[in-house]
């Protein structure tokens, strides 16, 4: 029964399986980003860890 559940995202209706497949595809696409872009994303993650997380001693990289 649970497998028939649909998820509505805006105008799109997806099954859980389709959503997981999309997530998988998104991760693989993100893996292809340029190194420079990934480092920028990393710095955002460091900023997030500093402001939201418990990691108060994180050094935000100078890029």
């Amino acid at each position, binding site marked *: 029964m649970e497998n028939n559940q649909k998820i509505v995202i805006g105008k799109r209706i997806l099954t859980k399986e389709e959503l997981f497949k999309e997530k998988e595809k998104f991760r693989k696409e993100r893996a292809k980003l340029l190194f420079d872009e990934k*480092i920028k994303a990393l710095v955002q993650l460091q900023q997030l860890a500093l402001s939201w997380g418990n990691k108060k001693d994180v*050094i935000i*990289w100078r890029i």
Partner: protein
Amino acid sequence: MRKTLEVINELKDKGLIKDYAIGGAIGALRWTQPFFTEDLDIFIICEKESKEKELIILTPIYEYLKKKGYPWKGHWIVIEGVPVDIFPADELEKTAIEEAQETEYEGIKTKVIGPEYLIALFLRVFRDKDIRKTELMLEEATVNKEKLDKILNKYGLTEKFTNFREKYYGK
């Protein structure tokens, strides 16, 4: 990061190291989607090897960086705002450096250890965070399975990899 890599390249240009490559989490991140990490791991091949093989002398490198005014924070040396860990390479890491992929970061040339060698290095250390990185590499990076098998076989890691796959992937 740009200036950090410039300084690390200087170590090579000035003959303080023979070669280097980025490994660890940033090495993995080159091949996977971005994920959180705090430091930049650099594996180096020293220019001069000590007469006593067990002794690895990094003093000239650290003296050079200290003279440039880079501070220590715990085990890291913070180069141009980026915490860096410098590891002298052993046999496996030396090959990984020699075969590392040349890449550029904002126009600065650098080398990053390839996915197959990174997996071997993570498997060898095998802490929780290495297991997570191994999973990420297998799921997101393009891995040459034949090359990986050869490396694992050469460095006695095949059984560890088989156990890892059985435990985490059930095959």
